Each structure stands twice: as C-alpha cells, then as structure tokens.
C-alpha cells in the first residue's frame, strides 16, 4: 500500500497487516507498527496496521539535524539463478566428463574454437560442427607466476601457459607441470594430465617430443 502520513504531502510504500483484501479500502486510517529491533532502515517499520483513531500529528518544522544520524544501512539481498550452459558449452562440459577436450568448427572459415562458445566471432555464425582437437598441443606463450593465489594449493613459482591443441585455432590456457618452471619454453609440446575426480585437466606436462617450429603456431600467439 501507499500511505500518506499525517502532515505529509507525499506517500510512502509499505506493507499493511490486514486479514484479506476486503478489509482494506483507499482512505482508511492506519498506524505504524514498529519492528522489535530497530537499526535505522525502512524495515524499522515492521508494517502498518488499521487504526480507528483521529489525526493526532501535525508536521512541525525540523532543522534536519539529529543526535544519532544514520550513516549507513545494510540491506542484504540474495538472488538465485539457474545457469543454462547452452548447446555449445553443454557439449564441451559433457566431453570434459569423459576426459575429452572438445571444440567446434566454424562452417564458414573452418576455424576450430576450443572451448567453444557457440559462434564464430569473425563470421558471426553458429559453430555447430563438433571437432576433437588435441589431446596434445604446443605452448605458444607463457608466464611465470610468483604470487601465491589465495586458496590455491600450488607452490610458486609455477608456469601458466597458452596452449594450442593440435588442430585448434584458438589457444586455451592452463598450468604447466612436470618440468621446472625455468625450463618451460615457447614451442614446447605438452599433453593434459587428468587427476582424481577433476572435471578438467589439472595441468599439462611435456610429451618429450621435439619442440614445434615457430611457424606452426605463430598465428595463434
């Protein structure tokens, strides 16, 4: 309901405690029911309730200063969502559950995107054709991480790399393991390592193959 407090010129939105809609009419008198606990928020008014009494209050001038001004208020909010991964991402996630990294091919420019997002950003068309790049790939570029991430159980320094899976036209990124951090290099051949019940590769490790030639991956840098 909207309620115009005695002495006010505009209305306030709040709840009215009434047994049913028939017990409410425009113009009826109501009064504030205060909340048990008050903290300086609109919810300090628990609700309004019907009131039969006369007008007892006139607005009086106020200089706008208060002995205990409210300087902030907390209004907690929680919203719940159901995420729809969509056609492309669902296929990718289903593949991960089988320990496969799947991509999708653009029907127009033939590029293979992994992970797939459902459309080719160059052609603006759906990438409906499934593709299975890898599982091996080439480190196209990398960095050495020296700052320990909160909640991440990995010793620093470690290497985070862009990896072009064989047959993919987009590099994905992952941690490199199984080799000292200062021996990782561009062109190094790597393969995924799946551990425990992880739903994606824990890291990539060297395959031992000779390094890839720069020209084979430079367009993916």
């Amino acid at each position: 309901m909207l309620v115009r407090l005695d002495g006010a010129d505009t209305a306030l939105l709040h709840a009215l405690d009434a047994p049913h809609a028939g017990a409410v009419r425009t113009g009826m008198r109501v009064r504030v029911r205060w909340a048990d606990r008050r903290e300086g928020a609109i919810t300090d008014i628990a609700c309004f309730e019907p009131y039969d009494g006369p007008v007892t209050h006139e607005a009086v001038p106020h200089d706008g200063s208060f002995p205990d001004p409210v300087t902030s208020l907390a209004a907690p909010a929680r919203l719940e969502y159901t995420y729809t991964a969509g056609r492309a991402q669902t296929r990718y996630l289903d593949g991960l559950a089988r320990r496969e990294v799947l991509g999708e091919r653009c029907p127009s420019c033939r590029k293979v995107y992994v992970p797939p997002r459902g459309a080719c950003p160059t052609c603006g068309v759906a990438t409906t054709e499934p593709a299975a790049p890898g599982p091996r790939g080439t480190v196209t570029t990398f960095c050495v991480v020296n700052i320990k991430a909160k909640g991440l159980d990995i010793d620093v320094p470690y290497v985070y790399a862009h990896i072009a899976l064989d047959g993919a036209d987009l590099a994905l990124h992952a941690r490199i393991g199984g080799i000292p951090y200062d021996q990782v290099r561009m062109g190094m051949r790597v393969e995924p390592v799946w551990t425990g019940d992880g739903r994606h590769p824990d890291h990539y490790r060297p395959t031992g193959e000779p390094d890839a030639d720069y020209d084979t991956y430079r367009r993916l840098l």
Partner: protein
Amino acid sequence: MTPPRDVAVVAYARTDHQGPAEGLSEAETLLPVLHEVLDRAGLAPGEADFTCSGSSDYLAGRPFSFTLTLDAVGAWPPIAESHVEMDGAWALYEAWVKILTGRADTALVYAHGKPSAGDPRDVLTRTLDPYYLAPLWPEPASLAALQARALADAGHTAGPDPAADPLAGPPAVADGAAAVVLAAGDAARRMCGRPAWIRGADHRVEPHALGLRDLTDSPSTRLAAERAGAFRAPVDTAELHVPFAAQDVVLRRALRLDDTVTVNPSGAAAGPLMVAGLIRLGEAAARIHRGASDRALAHATSGPCLQHNLVAVLEGDA
C-alpha cells in the same frame, strides 16, 4: 524538432517463444534472430557501422553478460559497439542518435532477455530505490496493483487488474530476443522497399518515488510523445508496451489515442523483459514496411508503474 537526417527502421526480426528458451544460452537464442534481420537488410555480420544492444546482467545473473552475445554479431576484428542496461528500445534510441550525428549510416540493434534464469519477481525489486523500496522486496505485480487500484478509485477502470494480483502465483516468464536494422537516407531505400522513417523519438522518466507520482497519469509519456512530434498529425497505428493490462488506459489517455487508432495489432503488449519495448518498435515498423500503416506510434516502458517511457513516431513514404 525535425531530425537532421532521415533514418529508418529497415528490417526487424524476433523470437516467438511463449515461455523459457529451454537449453539455449542467450547468444544461441539471439543468433537466428540476428541472421534473419541481417538477411532482410542485406548486411553481413559485422558490416553495420554501429551495433547497440539492450539486456540486463541482473536477469542473466552474471556481470557483463552482454559480452557473451558479441560473438554472434561477428565482433572480430573489433566493431563499433555499445550496450544499454535497458530494454532494447533504448538501444535503438542510442543507435538512432548515433546515425543522426553522421558518425554511422547503418546500425544493428538487438535485445535479449532470459528472465527464466532467475525469479524476475525478486530480480526486479533490485531496480528500485535502495533505501526505501528495495529492502521491502515489492514485486512488480504488487506495484502494478497499486496503480490498478488508483485507476479504479479514480473511475478510469471498472475494477482492479486481475493480472496485477501478486497472490495469483508466479507470472508466466518468457525468454526472447529481437533485432532491428536502422539505416539513413539512400542506404535505407536500398535495403527496404518501404522504410519506416523515424520522424521523432524521445524518452522521459517519472520521479523515482511512487508516492510522488499520480499513478493514474503518465506525464512522461505525454512529454516524450510531444517531443517526438506524435501530436502533430494523427497516427493510424499505435504499438504500446503494456506490462499490466490496467496501464493501457493510462497510455491511451497520455497519447490521446481514440477509436480510429489501431492499437497493438501485433498482439500481446507485454513480452520478454528487456525485449518487449524493442518488439513494439519493430512491429510498428514492420506494419509500415508491408503497407498496413502510414504513420505509427511506438511506445516502450521500463521500471515500475510505467516509470520511464519512450515514444517514437514512424512513417512510410506515400
């Protein structure tokens, strides 16, 4: 004011979901609509001079959710692109202004909404005043019911709006997407047999607090219509965005629509959140494209109880 350039809606497409878009991401819902509208205009993905979209992170439940749809428009190499956290009708307004400035001749405008991801009754309370309204979580139907009551009390309607009854259970939630192509002058004539020229467009907003407003009237709609030139000549068609049925009478009075005007010939006046307003503009334009209207008014609204209103006037060549 007469716009400094002739700009028209030359193509329009939309989804026709009646409910949730099961199993589809927002980008996947949007993609067929984009293809349809670009085909109609004869544009390749990424070819429009400017791209502008409307959608809401709060409905999607993730930040920068609109970026997920950019793949679908062919955004690489980079395009000139913008986004409004509003109904797509306001994206159309931004694109129209962009073309008026002369910085673009063509624009792709699209909107998408997947309110089925969450509960819009809760989500929409987050758009309200954070101090006095949001902590009370008043759902849209409750606020619309206040307006319906005010209209009934004032004698504008026979009784309360049954659709604006929060006790009636969760409302039907539709997901969807829509898109239009705008073009200036000769480009518009090349792309469309009968372009829907935008003769004027404007949007205005009511005071934020519901208690400051006369809920039986919509001065913002009236002012936007005036500024868009709607009252300079009669319209034969009006596409009104009416989230709750009782609001129809408010808009008809503010826009001075009489019985000679065909109102909402396209059907449902509500529609997917963030998309419904752009659909009204698109449907009015489509009616001009096929010769069923010569001068049409399109309206979009946003916020509780018709808070923010956009009016555009579209005309076809004789």
